[in-house]
Each structure stands twice: as structure tokens, then as C-alpha cells.
């Protein structure tokens, strides 16, 4: 899969107006989103180099192929989980025995209780390659994949697969869809207690205690199309033309541009 995108920085004073403009343009109400984003980084084992020797059962060609693989790129990747506003501000895990004792008809039909259950959190692995270099079209185009993961703790599996947890943050924003283009107006929130935890947190603080990464409160506007078959030049071209069309429509309000390629560099060095 390929993702083609355009980006813009939106100052906070323009946010409200832009939301309304986007709602008008797309003829839909914004879908509010909150996401936990966990950043993982592939770790390279130390002492890789210099492991060459007489091949026992390996053909010379295999050896070369393996060496090439060993020197291949490793990447940052994200594990993203949707959360809701009710998930925030949960106090320490409420003991179900005490909470549920007695009659609690309000809870019986599966309505979400106020406490956030990390063990029930759903996740998906989102991978983005570094944007392609030297493309003629002025959109950010990158290879991507997205896969659902099991609920609950993902760290053990991610560790086994070769990834270490780096940090996490929350993205809040609003999503629109227009002409097959997803339009995501969002910004990054940080946890109030900093990001030095080496594991994803099991509880979420109150939403109002979250701090802004960008202190002025500005937003990032990302307009993107996901192309199933990135090798199909025709669909890729159509997708970027759709994006250009949107850029023209939004020009009076905001200027959508290709992102700086290195700012989206997912390669782990």
C-alpha cells in the first residue's frame, strides 16, 4: 500500500474557522478522534559486523544475500490505539469486586465503565517507509502497511519481533473524508508526567492535564489517500491529482504542501 499526502501547519486561531470550512467543503460533520500512539524502534544487535567465515552449507550467493539483508534498513514503527474521552482521567484501576458489588444495572448492557482497561485496548501496527525521493509529483508518497494486533499488552510481542518501546503520545483531532481523501486536522498531546516511562502506561491521566507539544496549540493538517497498489502508476497519478484538486480548493484558507522528506524519515540509525 502507498500513502500519498499533503501537509499544512494551521495556527490555533485558524483552527475553528478551518473546521467549519472543512465541514462545509466535505458536507460532513467532523469525526473527533483520540489516539494513543506508541513509538517503537527496531533494535540492531551489537556486534554484527565481521561475521564471515567459510560457508558450511551456504552457497556463496546465499551468503551475499544474507549480508545484504543484515545491512538493510531498520525502522521506527508505530502502534496506534483508538481511545475515547471517557478513557482519560481514570483513577487507579478500580477493583471490580468492590465496584461491581450489588446491583449495577447501569453497567450490565456493556456500557463502558469509566475505568480504562489497558488489557482490552485494541491496537494496530502502522508502518511508514521514508517518503520516496525524487518523485516528480509534488506530494509526499510513501510505502505503508497497517495491521491489527491483539488487544492488551503489545510490548512483549513487539520485543520478540525486534522492536523496543521508545515513547508514546496522544493525537487528538478531527477527521473528514472528501472525494476519497482523508483529511485529518490534528495535534500532539503529551502526558503531563513526561515521557521517561519505558513502557506504555496502563492508565490515562485526565484529558485536561495533557500538555501540548506545540505550545501555541497549532494543528497539523494532513490530507491523504491510501492507494492499495502502489505499483499502478495510473492510480497513483489519479490519487495525487485528487490531492492537488483539494489543495486548490483549500488554497484561500490554507496551503497544503509536500512535507520535508527527512522529517518523515522512519529509518532507525
Amino acid at each position, binding site marked *: 500500500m502507498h500513502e500519498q499526502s499533503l501537509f499544512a501547519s494551521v495556527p490555533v486561531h485558524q483552527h475553528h474557522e478551518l473546521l467549519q470550512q472543512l465541514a462545509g467543503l466535505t458536507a460532513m460533520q467532523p469525526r473527533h478522534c483520540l489516539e494513543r500512539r506508541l513509538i517503537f524502534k*527496531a533494535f*540492531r*544487535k551489537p556486534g*554484527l559486523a*565481521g*561475521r*564471515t*567465515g*567459510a*560457508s*558450511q*552449507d*551456504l552457497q556463496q550467493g546465499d*551468503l551475499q544475500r*544474507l*549480508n545484504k*539483508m*543484515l*545491512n*538493510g*534498513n*531498520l*525502522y521506527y*514503527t508505530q502502534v496506534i490505539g483508538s481511545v475515547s474521552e471517557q478513557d482519560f482521567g481514570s483513577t487507579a484501576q478500580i477493583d*471490580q*469486586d468492590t465496584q*461491581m*458489588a450489588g*446491583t449495577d444495572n447501569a453497567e*450490565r448492557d*456493556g456500557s*463502558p465503565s469509566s475505568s480504562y*482497561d489497558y*488489557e*482490552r485496548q485494541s491496537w494496530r*501496527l502502522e*508502518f511508514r*517507509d521514508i517518503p520516496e525521493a525524487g518523485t516528480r509529483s509534488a506530494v509526499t508518497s510513501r*510505502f505503508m*502497511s*497497517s*495491521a*491489527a*494486533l*491483539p*488487544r*492488551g*499488552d503489545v*510490548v*512483549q*510481542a513487539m*520485543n*520478540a*519481533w*525486534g522492536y*523496543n518501546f521508545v515513547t508514546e503520545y496522544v493525537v487528538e483531532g478531527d477527521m473528514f473524508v472528501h472525494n476519497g481523501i482523508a483529511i485529518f486536522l490534528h495535534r500532539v498531546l503529551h502526558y503531563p508526567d513526561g515521557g521517561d516511562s*519505558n*513502557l506504555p502506561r*496502563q492508565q490515562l491521566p485526565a484529558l485536561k492535564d495533557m500538555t501540548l507539544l506545540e505550545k501555541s496549540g497549532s494543528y497539523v493538517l494532513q490530507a491523504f489517500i491510501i492507494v492499495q497498489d502502489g505499483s499502478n502508476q495510473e492510480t497513483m497519478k489519479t490519487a495525487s491529482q485528487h490531492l492537488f484538486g483539494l489543495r486548490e480548493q483549500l488554497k484561500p484558507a490554507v496551503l497544503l504542501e509536500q512535507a520535508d522528506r527527512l522529517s518523515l524519515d522512519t529509518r532507525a540509525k
Partner: protein
Amino acid sequence: MPITGVYFIPSNPNSSTALSTVTERLRAAFPDEDIAPIGRWALEQKLLRDTLGLLPASSTNKKPPNPRYMQFLSLSHYPTHGFIYTSEPADKPPAPNQTPTGPVNGIAPDHSPAPPMVMTTIPPASYGTLFQHFTYACQPFWSHRFTLAVPNGVVYDVGDFRVRLGDVRQTVPTARVRGTLVEIEWRGPSVVEAIPVAREDGSFGSVAGAGGIDLEADSGIDISAADIEESDIDAEYTATASLIREFWARLGMEGREAILIPGVGSEVKERLRRWKKAGSRTDIGRDDAEGEPDPWSGADVARQFMEVLRFNR
């Protein structure tokens, strides 16, 4: 999640497999049973190895680290999810919360030298995507070694057992026959089957009144959460394993066995833990007991299959 055992009978590339022999022995050993196919089944496994471990050891005589594996398995009898089974990293960072999928297990006390494996189940749509991800973005770690398949296995019911038979073919990198798989599943009464599966929201749909449960007809056991301890589960697994071994012995075949391997039963214990935790919620209605399928079902048999199919070359 039924208790199972898996046997693998390797064969030489040029000779025929043991499949017909096993079928014959089955008929001979259980003359009173009607040994007729009741269905088909299929399996696919993709095996990846740590790229570094594939290089020949250097001349510096350094002890090569344990090989690490990542195995992707899909089973037609658990169509709602695929399985990924991965060796834990040797130099893994401290992971204090190792509860849900951890290999901590009292069933199988044997400690194999290989690093413990981490079981993950994933939706079918993620199966191919994740495999592609690892072969694209993790080349320095993971190298796809081969793909094995049981394209058209046969299912028999033999008394309280269900037997799945099939020939294992390697499809990647070169096509060849690897041997025959036999899965033996205990379908008699079982405490393990009696533990309800948590629903989407973490509640337990099949809990009936007053902490008791009314099981589906064939399990025939009426228990409550308070009655079962983890040791009961261990005992159940051990007892059932001996039944399965007995069944296998009647066939008189030589094969690689995987029954009480590390990790087997851990999902069942986790289920019990959750059930006990939610145990005092007794007033759950029964009308919508059909929740989403348990994402961990089949993890035991998947472990067993991957244990016997973890070939080095």
C-alpha cells in the same frame, strides 16, 4: 479450547509419506469405530529465522547464540485468527508485566535450551500484512526460510477423540514433501472447556445465575469460578495428555511429539484469572452469550504444530 497433542512423522523427500500407514493403523486399532472422513482441514506455516543466526559462525570460535524463530501459522479449524510464535529476544529489556502471554507455566517443567516463545494471535487480515512487514522492514532480523502447508488434510472422529491427518508439503523455497502431521484432540468432558470466554467488554457472557455455569451439552460439567484453581488446570492437561499418548501408542508409529510444551495452557489460565476477577458479577443476562470468538482459541494446538514444524533447514 480443547486439549490436543500433535505428532509429526518425517519422511524422506523421495519416499512416500506415512499417511496411508497411519490411516490403516487407525482402522486396525479401533475396529469398532467407523473411521470415515468427516471433513477437511488445512494448515499453513511460514517460518522466519534470525538473519544473523543463518551466517556461518566466525572463526573466532565465539559460541553462536541460540537460533531465534518467528513462525506464522494459520489453521482452517481456527479461521478467525492467525498465530505468530516468536522467540523472545536474548537481550530483552526488562518486562515486568509478563502476565498474559508469558511462558510461565506449571504444566511443562522441562526447560528447553531454546529461548521461550511468545504467542500472539492476529486477525486474518493482519496475517499477510505482518508477514510482509517483517520481510520488508526487518531484514536484518528476520529471514524467510520456508513455507509449509497441509493443503488437504482429513478429519476423523474416533470415539472421544478427533483426529486430523495430513501430509506436509514445503512450497517455498522448493517444493518437496516433509512428512505427515497427526493432531489428536480430546473431545470428552473437560474442566478446561468449562471456563467461559470473556466478552468484548471483559464481561462473561455465559455466566448463569449465582456464580454457576451451565455448559454446552457435551462438556457435562457444572462448575463455578471458585471451584477451579490453576493447579486443577495443570492436572487436567496432564491427565488428558496421558489419554492422548495412550491413543497414539495404539497406532504404534514413531513420531515427534508435542503435547505439554512450554506455554501450553497459559491462555486457559489467563481466562480463569479473568473469570475469577469478574466472579462476583453474577447478574449477567444470558441472551447475548454469543460474543466475539475467543481470540486466543487454538493457541495450544498452534504451539504444538509450530513446535514440530520448527525445522532448521
